[in-house]
């Protein structure tokens, strides 16, 4: 089997390492290939490399990238059987024109189905619909012994819930059957509101989120003083045909049209352009241009994936890269949330727009991130002096109120922080020891955080 030795990093480009990369089709994933991984550093599956940290890289070992594979839509059942290497972009291009939508999408379409399961991803509809793993009926998993097992939540519950959110450490997901959401149009009807500060934002989200399938707030963490926590709250749902004809009669001719644009791509080799003044100016502009209150029609890309319009936007942070810090704290811990926003806002770090969202119930994944509470996500340039101290302090406050950190974003925490945030870690490790006694699956993150 051919492989190339390549440097890989996460989307934040912070901790690159080198591994032997195997690009394979599903039928090439055999027990022989597993044996060929051949050294004690193991292998990990990698999708499109959109996890921010080091979860899909494996220094000195092997990395498996699965070719896209088939997309088999079953309209009568409302499900799709899809190769784990298929991206949500490809999946949407196939199913949206036929009147279906993926059950959960993150802020980018450029993640694979396998990655969506391994990270048990969530989207703007988590409070209403839960995480991606809750919409999977079954998946085929290549385990360390070379077997291909068809796993469902009913017949191998522990392997199922160790794999949903298990960061690829139980095996390689080869394909999955996913339940889809029927849609009448490819547009969303969106209510946008400008909110002057954090307290009124929290109040609005608490009182009104249940009326919407999708809800998220973009928070300006550079603004301080009376503007602290000013935000733009966008909430909506898929537009019905009637709603579309009300707001945009010309679009009704082709209500399921889906051709997401890619406007520009960022060239390599730039220095960090997202310096504090640049971020401050951007955040200001973005807040000013948002309507005070408005109901309108938006495209799927405009509503769910605005950053997908800018190719390789992670290069804007230059060579040192950036990190995305995401945590969840219980609904009762509003004071902690407020103190964290205060601290980041006062810290002088140039945080690009932060995202605040309310999460619903757990999926049941042993290492799944979503749990009821407020989740805040912020982007920070990695080379900024003093960032390490800030993050250690935030870690402490998050854990103090029983919160946790998202493994798909994590690039800085410690084994202790993860253990404290994930009470079912030992249960996960027991399943792993049973299905992978020799440690075939390993990643840099798993070594760093003692997930092996």
């Amino acid at each position: 089997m051919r492989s190339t030795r390549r440097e890989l990093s996460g989307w934040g480009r912070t901790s690159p390492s080198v591994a032997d990369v195997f690009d394979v089709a599903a039928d090439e994933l055999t027990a022989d290939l597993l044996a060929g991984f051949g050294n004690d550093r193991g292998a990990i599956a990698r999708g499109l490399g959109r996890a921010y940290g080091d979860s899909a890289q494996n220094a000195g070992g092997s990395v498996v990238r699965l070719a896209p594979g088939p997309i088999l839509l079953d309209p009568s059942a409302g499900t799709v059987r899809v190769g784990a290497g298929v991206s949500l972009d490809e999946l949407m291009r196939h199913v949206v024109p036929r009147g279906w939508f993926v059950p959960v999408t993150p802020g980018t379409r450029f993640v694979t189905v396998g990655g969506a399961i391994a990270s048990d991803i969530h989207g703007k509809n988590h409070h209403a619909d839960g995480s991606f793993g809750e919409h999977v009926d079954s998946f085929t998993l290549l385990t360390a012994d070379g077997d291909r097992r068809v796993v469902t939540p009913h017949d191998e519950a522990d392997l199922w819930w160790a794999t949903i959110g298990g960061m690829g450490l139980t095996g390689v997901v080869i394909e999955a059957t996913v339940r889809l959401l029927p849609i009448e149009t490819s547009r969303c009807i969106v209510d946008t509101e400008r909110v002057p500060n954090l307290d009124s934002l929290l109040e609005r989200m608490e009182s009104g989120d249940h009326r919407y399938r999708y809800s998220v707030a973009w928070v300006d963490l550079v603004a301080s003083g009376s503007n602290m926590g000013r935000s733009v709250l966008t909430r909506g749902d898929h537009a019905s045909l009637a709603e579309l004809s009300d707001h945009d009669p010309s679009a009704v001719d082709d209500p399921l049209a889906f051709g997401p644009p890619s406007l520009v791509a960022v060239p390599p080799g730039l220095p960090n352009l997202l310096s504090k003044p640049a971020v401050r100016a951007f955040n200001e502009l973005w807040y000013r241009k948002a309507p005070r209150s408005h109901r309108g029609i938006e495209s799927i890309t405009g509503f769910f994936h605005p950053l997908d319009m800018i190719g390789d936007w992670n290069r804007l942070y230059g060579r040192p890269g950036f990190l995305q810090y995401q945590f969840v704290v219980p609904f009762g811990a509003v004071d902690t949330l407020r103190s964290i926003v205060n601290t980041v806002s006062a810290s002088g770090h140039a945080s690009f727009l932060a995202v605040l969202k309310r999460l619903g119930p757990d999926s049941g994944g042993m290492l799944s991130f979503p749990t009821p509470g407020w989740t805040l996500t912020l982007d920070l340039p990695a080379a900024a002096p003093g960032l390490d101290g800030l993050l250690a302090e935030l870690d402490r406050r998050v854990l103090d109120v029983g919160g946790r950190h998202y493994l798909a974003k994590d690039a800085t925490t410690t084994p202790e922080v993860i253990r404290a945030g994930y009470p079912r870690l030992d249960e996960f490790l027991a399943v792993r020891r049973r299905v992978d006694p020799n440690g075939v699956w390993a990643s840099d993150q798993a070594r760093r955080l003692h997930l092996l």
Partner: protein
Amino acid sequence: MNNAVAQPQTIVVLGGTSDIGQAIVAELVSPALRTVVLAVRQPDDVDTDTLADTLHSGDAEIVVVPFDATAPETHADVVADIVTRVGDLDVVIQAFGQLGTAALSDPVEAAALAQVNYVGAVSSGLAVADQLRRQGHGTLVVLSSVAGFRTRGSNFVYGSTKAGQDGFATGLGHSLAGTGARVMTVRPGFVRSSMTTGMAEAPFSADPADVAAAVAAGLRRKRSVVWVPGILRVVMGLLRFAPDVVWRRLDR
């Protein structure tokens, strides 16, 4: 594995009694740090309890192992033994070295200085590089000196050993491109340390803590060369072209 803010989990200091080496460790201490390995000539002379205080190393384990820079035949084994004990090496600091003030006229002294500063750097550097290449990540931090950038009449033997070490380190860095392993060459000016006690300070001098801060920043920014203080990059860049007569005058 370093995390995204370049905090290592495992640090090895070759020449673990070096003031600068220890200052770098103290600077790199973080909640992520698990193990510090000090490779020293006389392990029995090292009191790890006192060191834990000096390094502010908190919960990190301090491991002391024997290391002799002048015994190249042992270097591969030393590295292999460290890896067996502590796993992947995230940051390895090549901190050993001598000033060898007696070496300006004594051929034997001069050769001994070259053995430590250059030959030892080459053999231990290769042993470390082999491990970093195999593990697919990690940084070798080499403490070079401005003295090797353009050698001076007043300490040319030391300067020449540093020139050799510096050339080896930067070249090794190029050879490791694409392997995940990196080399960061550090060029301090005069550093006020136990190695230079009693000597007259040169312009642009620094403390070990300054070197440590520059190394930590260099690791965050993934630099291949770091000057301490940073202005020396410009100063030496110009002085490199100064006429010989001017250069000699500057050498007092």
